[in-house]
């Protein structure tokens, strides 16, 4: 008798055959499911790429919109000001909160803060924009302003920054902290020079992702930033400011070809920034966490 078995072709029972067919169909369905997700995304990106690129020219970046034609300079500058401005508020608070939660937040207070922070992410952006309209734009008298827009965006992205910071800092080994304490370091030194430095790639990831979110937001800005056809003149209050997502949202409704072209061009710019940040973060920074 040979030690190896000859492969004897067995007759498959009908049950077995049914199971194999079911499994094959199952795999096919899973592949179909994936395509149902991937294809719309690719179609979306392609549509925007093709229609947006057709509006591209040098003037797109050097002139501002006037009514329904022109360029996107004011909108581009405005988006940059609003998003970077929101980081000015969101980074200290978000990273600080995340640091608190990871270092000192393993208690009742910490879990309450975590829960409420998650709740804040569930707040619809339009509710936030509406709140800011009544309190800052009208109540404080700032009118449509970059400051109102930035603060609203900041409220939106702080919870994300806090959560990602907390997760990144938690991965720093406890031994590093203990070693620093053993050397006599104060809490502040341990937090900044040891934990934050080690967890920096993760924190930067969070900041960049928050930036990507703020670049793509519309509803919080409609009633806070207003709209302007002119490049931002440096005033933080009493001066409305343009932004790219406004162009996408309103110009697509105008029955002029030039307006549609601008809407797609703005969408292309927004998508480029959002995709660049997200892909970049996943390829470059994630492995380092």
């Amino acid at each position, binding site marked *: 008798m040979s030690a190896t078995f000859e492969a004897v072709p067995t007759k498959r029972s009908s049950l077995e055959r049914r199971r194999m067919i079911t499994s094959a169909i199952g795999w096919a369905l899973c592949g179909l499911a994936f395509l149902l997700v991937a294809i719309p995304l690719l179609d979306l990106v392609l549509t925007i790429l093709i229609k947006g690129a057709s509006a591209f020219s040098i003037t797109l970046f050097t002139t501002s919109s006037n009514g329904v034609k022109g360029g996107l300079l004011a909108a581009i500058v405005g988006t940059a000001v609003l998003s970077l401005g929101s980081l000015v508020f969101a980074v200290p608070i978000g990273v600080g909160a995340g640091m608190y939660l990871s270092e000192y937040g393993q208690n009742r207070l910490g879990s309450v803060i975590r829960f409420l922070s998650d709740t804040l992410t569930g707040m619809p952006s339009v509710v936030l924009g509406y709140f800011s309209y009544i309190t800052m734009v009208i109540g404080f008298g700032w009118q*449509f302003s970059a400051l109102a827009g930035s603060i609203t965006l900041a409220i939106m992205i702080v919870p994300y920054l806090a959560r990602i910071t907390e997760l990144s800092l938690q991965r720093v080994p406890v031994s590093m902290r203990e070693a620093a304490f053993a050397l006599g370091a104060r809490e502040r030194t341990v937090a900044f020079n040891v934990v934050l*430095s080690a967890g920096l790639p993760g924190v930067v990831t969070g900041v960049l992702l928050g930036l990507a979110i703020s670049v793509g937001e519309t509803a919080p800005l409609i009633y806070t930033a207003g709209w302007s*056809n002119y490049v931002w003149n440096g005033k933080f209050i009493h001066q409305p400011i343009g932004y790219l997502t406004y162009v996408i949202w309103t110009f697509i*409704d105008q029955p002029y070809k030039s307006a549609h072209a601008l809407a797609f061009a703005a969408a292309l710019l927004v998508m480029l920034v959002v995709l660049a940040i997200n892909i970049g973060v996943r390829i470059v920074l994630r492995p380092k966490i």
Partner: protein
Amino acid sequence: MRSDAKLRRSTLLRAAAAAALVAGLGMGVAQAAGVSLVETGSSLLYPLFNIWVPHFEKAYPGVKVTTQSTGSGAGIAQAISGVVQIGASDAYMSDQQIKQNPDILNIPLAISAQAINYNLPGLNDKHLKFSGPVLAGIYTGKITKWNDPAIEKLNPGVKLPDHQIIPVHRTDGSGDTFIFSQYLDFSTPSWANTVGYGTTVSWPAVQGGLGANGNPGMVEALKQNPYAIAYIGVSFYKEVAQAHLGKAMLLNKAGKFVLPTAKTISAAADELVGKTPADERISLVFAPGAMSYPIINYEYAIVNSKQKDAATAKAVKDLLTWASNQGNSESYLKQVEFKALPAAVKKLSAEQIAKISG
């Protein structure tokens, strides 16, 4: 040590960012020597305002005007709250609004009109006839099909399709809704008793009725939905023509069917502008006269007579004065099929403009 170097680098970065911010602000402050005005509101007036702005800015360098198309309701609300300097509106403010905001002026800048457009495959080159009561029936859901006897009676000899009508209304606070609902209100008692008029009305539930945002949204809705009917400002006549949509003849107060043309708009204006009061709030809808087009209106600038400073007040006065004089020349108005203000009204407007101070 690595962390020291990192700290130093991050401090340097922070300092550089701060310096850039300050430099940018400095540049900004230098640029801010001019005055910025924001105009928002009526999508009916929006095309004309966009035509005006470059010419006005050439005449008055140092004033920057941003225009927005958000609907008359927004124009009124934001002018009242002070977040914009000029609210454009096809509708004048209500008595209650005036009572609550006595400083707000309603200043006509031009006379415009509104058309009823539709998308009927095969029939868009014909001017179908409609009356106020028939339109009211369509928008209340009492008349549901194109070949309803009421519509066929007005259009003898036309083969109307047996298909559901899709009435499109404005979802935003709209001056177009205001004048359209006034036409229905003045001509149809049942509409007046149930729905009334306003920049927003409680549109009766019509299965399949669509909502659209702004005049452009109305045009798009017609383009995408055969068998739809909508009310669209005449300033969009080019887009309507390009889309090969139909334009209706409307029954006026004298019982005649008229199209919105320069002649019919003028006829209606001549009948009523003489009655314009000092605060210039008056409806021009459903004017008497055989040649009068029934849906015309003043395009208002809703402005606060108390502006935040003298420079802004002067800029606003300059813009309004320019608009009601140079801006009223045929070369601008005919691009949107509007009509110029008569001299008597220009005088009333000038008197109101003089009240603006900062």
